[in-house]
């Protein structure tokens, strides 16, 4: 387990290093530039150049990358050119808000999705199963932004039950904070639920056909024990992996959700940075989101290894 963890960490570091180079190069290749952006409409070339010099944008790429990478290693994500503030605190705040969204959504998806999946597997072929399948089809059939619009329409505009956008800090009180989370979370849940439910269902069906489940039944174990103790634990292994991937997906994919719900998280920060061509902010945001994504995957793999005693003991580094 330790060797496995170490290996994965080394890989992670390598992947992140390569990613940082890629991110840096790609963002450099973006059209438009921050100096013109700051200079505004019809600024003359000399103005733009003056700003570029001031920002250090005139230095060779490799120097700029070196400074940037060295900064990151020190934990300094640089300064936003547009906001003229250190990026780290802004980013961390946005990340924290996105994380709240992701964690809550994921928790709901895990509980509800696994529950539905198990239910469908146990009632395989029966009405319950078909209902769950139908609902899950519906969930994945339309994109998240469509659900978001429908939810806004129903709960915000018609029923006026929930705020349809924005964010309230916890300092405003728990309820305002929570109420702002409901719609984005429900949208994310709708988007992810189907996959988890279907996956759990299919792996549950597989596990229910294994010999050890048959043997558990041959021991006279009640069906509830067979399902919850014998089958579920093994059936959840693939679900864990997918949940972690989903976690990363939420972090990266909240762009749309956050846009619709005007939720000030990472996704909107990134769009903001792209629109304003704030290179350091774009780079830092993508790097942090990708790192979070990688970490989520790593966590999933480690969790998978931990939950699976076959790997936990006598782990052979894959």
């Amino acid at each position, binding site marked *: 387990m330790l060797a496995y963890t170490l290996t994965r960490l080394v890989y992670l570091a390598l992947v992140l290093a390569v990613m940082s180079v890629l991110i840096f190069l790609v963002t450099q290749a973006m059209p438009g530039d921050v100096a013109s952006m700051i200079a505004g409409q019809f600024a003359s070339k000399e103005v733009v150049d003056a700003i570029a010099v001031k920002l250090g944008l005139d230095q060779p790429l490799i120097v700029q990358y070196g400074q940037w990478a060295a900064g990151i290693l020190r934990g300094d994500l640089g300064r936003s050119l547009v906001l003229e503030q250190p990026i780290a605190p802004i980013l961390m705040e946005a990340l924290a808000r996105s994380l709240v969204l992701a964690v809550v959504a994921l928790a709901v998806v895990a509980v509800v999705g696994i529950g539905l999946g198990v239910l469908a597997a146990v009632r395989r072929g029966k009405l319950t199963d078909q209902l769950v399948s139908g609902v899950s089809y519906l969930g994945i059939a339309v994109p998240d932004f469509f659900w978001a619009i429908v939810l806004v329409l129903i709960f915000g505009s018609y029923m006026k039950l929930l705020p349809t956008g924005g964010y309230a800090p916890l300092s405003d009180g728990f309820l305002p904070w929570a109420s702002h989370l409901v719609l984005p979370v429900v949208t994310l849940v709708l988007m992810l639920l189907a996959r988890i439910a279907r996956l759990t269902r299919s792996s549950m069906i597989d596990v229910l056909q294994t010999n050890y489940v*048959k043997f558990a039944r*041959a021991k006279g*174990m009640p069906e509830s024990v067979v399902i919850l103790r014998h089958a579920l634990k093994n059936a959840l292994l693939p679900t864990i992996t997918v949940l972690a991937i989903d976690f990363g997906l939420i972090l990266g994919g909240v762009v749309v959700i956050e846009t619709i719900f005007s939720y000030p998280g990472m996704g909107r920060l990134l769009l903001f940075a792209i629109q304003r061509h704030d290179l350091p902010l774009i780079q830092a945001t993508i790097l942090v989101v990708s790192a979070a994504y990688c970490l989520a995957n790593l966590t999933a793999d480690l969790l998978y290894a931990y939950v699976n005693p076959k790997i936990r003991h006598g782990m052979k580094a894959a």
Partner: protein
Amino acid sequence: MMTAPQARPAVPPVTAAASAPEPAPLLDVRGLTISYGNARGTLRAASDVGFAIRPGEVMGLVGESGSGKSTIAMAILDLLGGGGRVESGEILFDGTDLRRLSAPERRALRGDRIAAVFQDPFTSLNPALTVGRQIAEPLIQHKGFSPRQAAARVQDLLSEVGIRDPRRVAAAYPHELSGGMQQRALIATALGCEPKLLILDEPTTALDVTVEARIIDLLAKLCDSHRLSALFVSHNLGIVNRICQTVTVLYGGLVVETGPTGRVLSRPAHPYSKGLVAALPRITAGRRHRLPSIPGTVAKLSGPPAACVFAPRCPFAEEACRSRPQAMLTDAAGDGVRCWKADALAGIPWPDEDAGIARDPKKAQPRSAPLVEVDHLRKIYGANRSILPWLRRAGTVAVEDVSFTVGRGEVVGVVGESGSGKSTIGRALLALTEPSAGTVLFDGADLTRRVRQGDQDLRRRAQLVFQNSAASLNPRKTVGDAMDRPLVLAGRADAEERRKTVAGLLTRVGLPSAYADRYPHELSGGERQRVNIARALATDPDFVVCDEAVSALDVSVQANILNLLAELRDEMGLSYLFITHDIAVVSHIADRVLVVYGGTICEEGPTGRVLRPPYHPYTEALLSAVPRLAEDGQETPRILLEDAAPTPGGQGCAFAARCPRKLGAVCDEQAPPVHRTDDGHRIACHIPLATLAERAAVFPELAGDAPH
């Protein structure tokens, strides 16, 4: 179909020895009909099956794959899955018809009064739970034990099934245990609630022979000491012979014969039983050119039988057999047979196909240079030279310093258990894997190097016949296509001529040439194996490696294939390296035998020599573990090995850890010396040859014969 269930109770069976009233059967199955339904129609897995098991009796339920034996076991447990349905019949357990009970009532019986052990210990234990917890579950469920009480009982149970350190095993996860240990744990689970009836569904099939012997021994003892009744489902007549008092033979979902084990196996009444017993390769049977075999493939029913199910394959069949279904004929002793000619056939053996021309062993001992020479072959898997220190790994030794030769026209058998490295040796001989050290010379040339340099012609002269006949054919290619390619590669441009060659090859392996247009999934297992052989022959090879080529086949089919391989060898002058775990098969076909253990050769010699003393201790154990039929004579005390998995790659003798005759530290520390006797017989052991020779023969019947 007025059959046994009605007839049998009418004539109460009387035991010859005592006239004490016959105890009521513990399990009495009557008229059980089970079908599987799916979109394409229904399949009858069992038709009107009836048998009885008395208290304390172990009954064998034997048959080939598809005979319905496991289905019946599952029906008793109420665990039929996948669309299986009991159509009719009664399952009387202790006088109660289980079919009339509700599902919860049947569940309450399961694991408590009726316990089960299944075929595959590797998959029957839940990988996510500790072994102890899984054993304790029925105790808590049925007996109301507290977890603490249950834990204590688990330790006792584990000790009872022969596990030395029950505490560790109880805390272990299944994958940390060897197959034998896992099967013991399953048996302990089954015994936990002190059941009256055990359902044993092929409980040793997945295990190595030496482990199997230990488990059977344990089961026999337990059934005896606990006065357990058991239904023992198996395809292996030798094991049935060892543990069962009575036996019921199934064919095509019907009981064709039932009776005391000794009688059924020594004097089978039904033609199918005769064929089954005859087709079994036997060490003691002497060398025969051909094994008796049953033609055709196993029958499957989709409805009530309209004729004798075995008639299409039966050499004794006549018109009457094909026109009406057969009824069960029961005699006074409770023996039954479903053949109207049974009495007439009594004493008539299954036809022996052996032409009687014993193969001249001299032909197999050519004077010319050997075809294959293996010199100090070594293979290490999984070595890793990573830059990350914790990932560096020395690797696992699969083959450790193996040298031998295969002569032209010679059949060399390689016998060993799983993990012995026997398959690796085969793959190295075909240049499918690169040796870590040592050389493989094929017809004097270094095969590995030539193949690496792109010499495909040399490679085509060595071919492989696989174990898994299904996976060895590309599912998307017809049989003809699969066989056509080697011919194309050999540069035969004329398509018409190739087609003829393919047809010829198919005919040669006993298949209609029309099979060229079929896809693999349209063939039966035996047919696929014939296609496999035909394809191997298409490159016109000199040397064929048969890697467990008959292990996956039913006995009747296995005999067919063995006969075919023998014919081809004789006709085409082929050399075989015959890799198998079944020493009986090897003794039938091989001229010389290598006994491998832990990647090393412990014994090598002409087949007749290896089967006689002096033995390597491992060979001796292996031979003594071979299950045999009653007619093969008195069994000698078996040598039971530890379950411990072999640990190859050490300094000393690979077998030292499990050796019952281990001398001491020397076995662990030094590689054993090789004793050579006459006829190229070699034994690698620290025990002096003379001491080894003192041992009694495992098969005394063979002792007098002169070695080949």
